[in-house]
């Protein structure tokens, strides 16, 4: 089912972000320490990659190994996704979609027809494998000009759409932009803003990092990563694909309203409610005027903070 042009739930009543996926970490099912790494990572989501067995029936091979890999990846409370290549999507979906995954990450997408094809396959697999109908999400790893150009049609192609994941390295190569982080500006600034806006408009979210961390993928000091996460959040990203396990903690802490922010939002809500009772449209707090949109934002962001905390609690429980 396609998403219409019409108004969604009023801003403020939509869950924001749609799902708490602050940190996404990629692991290979070939990794003998997959379970241990996933458990120790504390990532909100794990993307599973695989290698097709040469000289043999790679589909049967994957089918035999995927259920255990999915189980191992989810031990620490992470949601589990599988990365699927657009060119061989149908066969890869057949080989990798099993109970325990939250969805798939489609890579190499160039238009909405790729989503439509994947939806048809997922519809059938959900029935044949006893998964909930319409349950599996489709996220899109953006690494082509086509995916950017058609981003709105892609996001609106199915209600299964969940997120854009920006693959800056591959996108820059596809666009002919240098990948060396020597520019004084982010060459993908406009594209990132587009993907964030489009994903939000479709009720989803965008995951990505700020320049140059998202491009270099180099590890860096804690302070540098923290600042990069802060800027990515200020850009509108709701999480990032972590190139290094060390980024995960900073993403979990950074892609959410902080405890101080949450305390401030509680104060805003309380003081504004008192003001409304007295018939006022705005009330001051610490020299700043609090009015309807500020109050609405406080309520929205407080919900976000609470949902992030709930996600942390779920993962803590999974680790006990």
């Amino acid at each position, binding site marked *: 089912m396609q998403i219409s*042009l*019409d*108004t*969604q739930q*009023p*801003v*403020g009543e939509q869950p*924001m*972000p749609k799902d708490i996926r602050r940190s996404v970490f990629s692991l290979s099912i070939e990794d003998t320490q997959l379970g241990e790494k996933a458990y120790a990572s504390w990532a909100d989501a794990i993307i599973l990659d695989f290698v097709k067995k040469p000289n043999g029936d790679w589909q049967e091979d994957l089918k035999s190994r995927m259920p255990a890999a999915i189980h191992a990846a989810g031990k620490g409370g992470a949601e589990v996704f599988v990365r699927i290549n657009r060119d061989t999507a149908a066969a890869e979906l057949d080989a990798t979609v099993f109970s325990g995954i939250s969805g798939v990450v489609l890579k190499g997408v160039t238009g909405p027809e790729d989503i439509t094809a994947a939806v048809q396959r997922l519809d059938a697999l959900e029935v044949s494998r006893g998964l909930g109908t319409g349950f599996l999400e489709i996220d899109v790893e953006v690494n082509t000009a086509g995916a950017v150009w058609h981003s*709105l049609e892609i996001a609106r192609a199915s209600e299964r759409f969940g997120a854009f994941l920006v693959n800056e390295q591959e996108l820059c190569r596809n666009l002919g932009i240098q990948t060396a982080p020597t520019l004084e500006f982010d060459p993908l*600034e*406009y594209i990132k*803003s*587009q993907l*964030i*806006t*489009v994903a*939000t*408009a479709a009720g989803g979210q965008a995951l990505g990092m700020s320049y140059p961390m998202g491009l270099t993928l180099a590890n860096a000091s804690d302070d540098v990563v923290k600042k990069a996460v802060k*800027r990515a*959040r*200020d*850009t*509108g990203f*709701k999480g990032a694909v972590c190139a290094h396990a060390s980024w995960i903690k900073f993403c979990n802490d950074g892609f959410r309203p902080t405890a101080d922010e949450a305390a401030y939002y509680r104060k805003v809500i309380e003081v504004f409610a008192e003001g*409304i009772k007295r*018939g*006022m*449209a*705005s009330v001051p707090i610490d020299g*700043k005027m609090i*009015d*309807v*949109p*500020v109050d*609405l*934002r406080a309520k*929205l*962001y407080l919900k*976000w903070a609470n949902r992030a905390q709930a996600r942390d609690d779920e993962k803590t429980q999974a680790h006990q």
Partner: protein
Amino acid sequence: MNNRVARVSMFVTPTNPRFIDKAWTRGGDVYILDIEDSIAPAEKQRCRTLIRESIQKANKGGASIYVRINKPFVDADLPYAVWPGVDRIMLPKTESPAEFKRVHEIITRLEKERGIVPGTIELYPMIESALGAVNIHAILTATPRKLRSMGGAGGYDMAMNLGIEMFADFDQYAFPVAYVALAAMSLGMEATGGVFVPNTSGRVDQGDQAAMQAAALHAAGVHHAGALHPNFIQPLVSGLSPTADEIAWAKKVIEAFDRLTDAGESIGQLDGKVVDKYENDMAKRTLDWAAACAAKDTYKARALARAQAAEKQPADGHATH
């Protein structure tokens, strides 16, 4: 009245005499009578009943008058907002062509009932969410109602929708602002979208911030900015008008291009700078805008003088001539 020139607009609350009674003295090109977020829920009905008299108060200095209504209360607001003297109705948080078209239809009915030529009042979709931004072309083409200029797609509500802070040292609204401006221009409207100027404090009373904003907009050929504080009005009015040097240069360029044309040439130089058809067109635009600004300023000055004289009359007990 010259409604094309809207260098600076400022919201005023009809329910607050301190703001509405003094607005005409501030020198703004546009005042927006607000029934939306600056009005408490309990005050909205009283505010609606004050709109008609507020139009007469706020435009005494020659300003154009817009009214911002509430999206959830369009049926309740519009009968109090559509009057002669209103140049534009602003629909906040517009997200779909259907809701925009419905407001257009109500305005058309009210225009007919109130002796206003249908289609006279502009309807402006305020784009304050990601959904509104991506739907902008469909929204702007949903009705035949004229709209001279279009911008926005940044601001507080957009920040909230995107989950970001409003004030940053980089342009977090790069796509929605540009996309809305591009849609407007593709439909022949003047784009009034903001040009990014760092503002991390969020303070609204700094004249130097206004001057920086005006310089950035002026350089980009944008002729409009919003003022959240009266201190912003004069820096924006003067900063968004062509300077005497710019006008003199434009005249020289046009003269030089005329000489080139007479000589059968299409490109030449003036004081080391290229003169061609493009530069000639730009110079004509500068003079056109300068003339429009001058006409608006003259109109405002005369209106202001009349209003000041009328203000003086009751205090002196007799008319001044």
